[in-house]
């Protein structure tokens, strides 16, 4: 019965004819159920309801998670649409063929019940769905170009251009000075040659620059030797100091995962994936099930079609139950003990304090030296947040005589056995 009605569907009355008229002149691409109120108040009230309850899954004119809603009362009578909004499970359960097909088309994604909506609410909602926020293509195009223009103006690199100009001007000025100096020399030489000079002066004025003589001079040899020795010594000492320090190590990972995208652009907190950081020694590398919280839906970057080859690697790992073999970046020697929870949960230190600007790193590298001196420096300088923590009360009391604030070094932060045991 229902399906038959949907076929016959539109009742022929004035509203329908009016809608048909609009369709014919090409503005309307659908027809709404004539029962739907088109008044401005209803549309405004419906918009508020739509934004709190529907927006995350539906758009008016495009598919999102659920179908585009405009024209819903053309495809089905308004009464059926209302029933479906109130409790979609009941409608699907009743065997309604149209809504069952729709349910299947959208991969059996169930819509939550909205029993709390009154009949007035539903009417307003339908009014907004059918008549609200119509997009005028010409206006949209104009708005689009306007936005682009604004972006172009905002994106201009003015400081950079200034720097280049300043540099060029400086070089030109220096060249000019050189040319002027050269001119002065030649003019002076010509003038002196015309004068009557004694032999010594004559020789001095007309002397030629002798490169060989300069190179063989003692002063030159001493300066060059000293420079070479200093350079070699510096590289040797730097090299020796870098033995056992892996600062700058940024290995290629099995998946080209970008922290810049996830932690920077998308602002996902570090702890969302590195869940162990507040409860254990290690911050933990996330298992693929955490990736899949989002990547079940996000299959490619920047809204591209198809599956990105890098994201495909997560799917393969999940399907085949194989580990993703990430390369460990921070390799603290086994002779030193370090605990993340102690620093992050108790000490309240930001991840970036030690790991650097991770949110800007395309490939993660070791930012800090992780040497003992580096640890100790921080322990000497860092004050302890003792306020509101009864654990520290006695320590604060003992420390009260000192002029300095209570620091990590004062509560055993420099003890050998704190880290080496």
């Amino acid at each position, binding site marked *: 019965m229902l399906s038959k009605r949907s076929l016959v569907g539109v009742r022929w009355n004035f509203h329908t004819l009016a809608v048909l008229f609009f369709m014919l002149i090409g503005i309307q691409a659908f027809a709404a159920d004539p029962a739907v109120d088109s008044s401005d108040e209803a549309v405004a009230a419906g918009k508020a309801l739509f934004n*709190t*309850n529907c*927006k*995350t899954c539906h758009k008016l004119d495009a598919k*999102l*998670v*659920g179908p585009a809603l405009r024209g819903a009362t053309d495809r089905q009578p308004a009464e059926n649409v209302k029933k479906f909004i109130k409790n979609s499970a009941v409608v699907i359960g009743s065997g309604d063929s149209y809504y069952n097909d729709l349910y299947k088309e959208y991969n059996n*994604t*169930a819509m*939550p*019940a*909205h029993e*709390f*909506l009154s009949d007035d609410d539903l009417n307003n909602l339908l009014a907004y769905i059918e008549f609200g926020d119509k997009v005028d293509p010409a206006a949209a195009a104009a708005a689009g170009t306007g936005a682009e223009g604004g972006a172009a103006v905002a994106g201009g690199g003015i400081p950079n251009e200034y720097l280049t100009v300043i540099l060029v001007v400086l070089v030109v000025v220096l060249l000019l000075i050189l040319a002027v100096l050269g001119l002065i020399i030649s003019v002076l030489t010509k003038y002196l040659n015309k004068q009557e000079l004694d032999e010594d002066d004559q020789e001095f004025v007309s002397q030629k620059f002798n490169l060989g003589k300069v190179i063989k001079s003692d002063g030159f040899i001493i300066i060059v030797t000293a420079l*070479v020795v200093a350079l*070699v*010594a510096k*590289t*040797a000492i*730097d*090299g*020796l100091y*870098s*033995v*056992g*320090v*892996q600062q*700058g*190590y*940024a*290995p*290629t990972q099995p998946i080209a995962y970008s922290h810049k995208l996830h932690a920077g*652009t*998308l*602002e*996902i*907190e570090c*702890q*969302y994936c590195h*869940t162990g950081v507040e*409860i254990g020694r*290690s911050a*933990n*590398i996330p*298992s693929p*099930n*955490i990736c*899949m*919280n*989002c990547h079940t*839906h*996000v299959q490619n970057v920047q809204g591209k079609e198809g599956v990105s080859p890098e994201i495909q690697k997560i799917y393969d790992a999940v399907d085949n139950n*194989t*580990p993703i073999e990430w390369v*460990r970046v921070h*390799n603290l*020697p*086994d*002779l030193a003990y370090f605990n993340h929870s102690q620093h992050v949960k108790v000490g309240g230190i930001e991840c970036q304090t030690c790991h650097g600007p991770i949110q800007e790193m395309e490939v993660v590298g*070791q930012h800090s030296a992780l040497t003992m001196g580096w640890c100790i420096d921080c322990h000497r300088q860092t004050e302890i947040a003792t306020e509101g923590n009864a654990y520290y009360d006695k320590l604060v009391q003992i420390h009260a005589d000192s002029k300095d604030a209570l620091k990590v070094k004062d509560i055993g932060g420099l003890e050998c056995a704190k880290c080496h045991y």
Partner: protein
Amino acid sequence: MKIAKALSLLGIAAAGISLVACKADGDNQGLEYAPQMYHSVAYEPLTQIKDETKGEWLSNREDGKGEFFNSNINNPHGMNMREPVAGTVPRTKDGSLPYRYKAFEIEEASVNVKNPIELNDEVLKEGERLFQLYCTPCHGKGGQGDGTVGMIIGGVANLTGGAYVGLSEGHIYHVITKGKGRMGAHGSQITPENRWKIVHYVKQKLQGGQNADNAVAVAEKATQETQVETPAN
């Protein structure tokens, strides 16, 4: 004499330049000092060297493998971590047992599961912090389904919307633990205690306390206390 001097200078220069190569950079891990003290003898959960020849040059292991080889040959994929034996139950601080409801048993969970954590300001503050860590990427700072990631994924619930404000705390806990619709299961990321703190925050601050457990819990506690007192009297 001059040749000897030149050679010695060249040697020093070569040594200096070769030392530069010790510096870590890109894929090069750099030279290790005292490697035997760097690599753990015991199995470590987050390091795994699968190459059996690694460190062969200083190895004195009885099995003849390289000094640094530290994969567990008895585990799948040579991993050092292992899934717990089926049927075992983790011991927790508060003695809570594992969550038994399956993902589809949401109706039962909504009715039967109650928030065991007492509501106070500290819990709400911690709940807010945890919400910002684990929920805001999708649900947004105000829980309105407008987080940066949520905009890409789409279909994120507006926790302040009419369909959600009246849901029970058990329902929220179940959805965090097992996932629902487009939301994945977050049980592996957030401890049960923290999940309940998030539930408190969502219920009290984002949904205005509608259908909260704490009203019931406080009443129940009061009756329990009187019952306990009776025999003592």
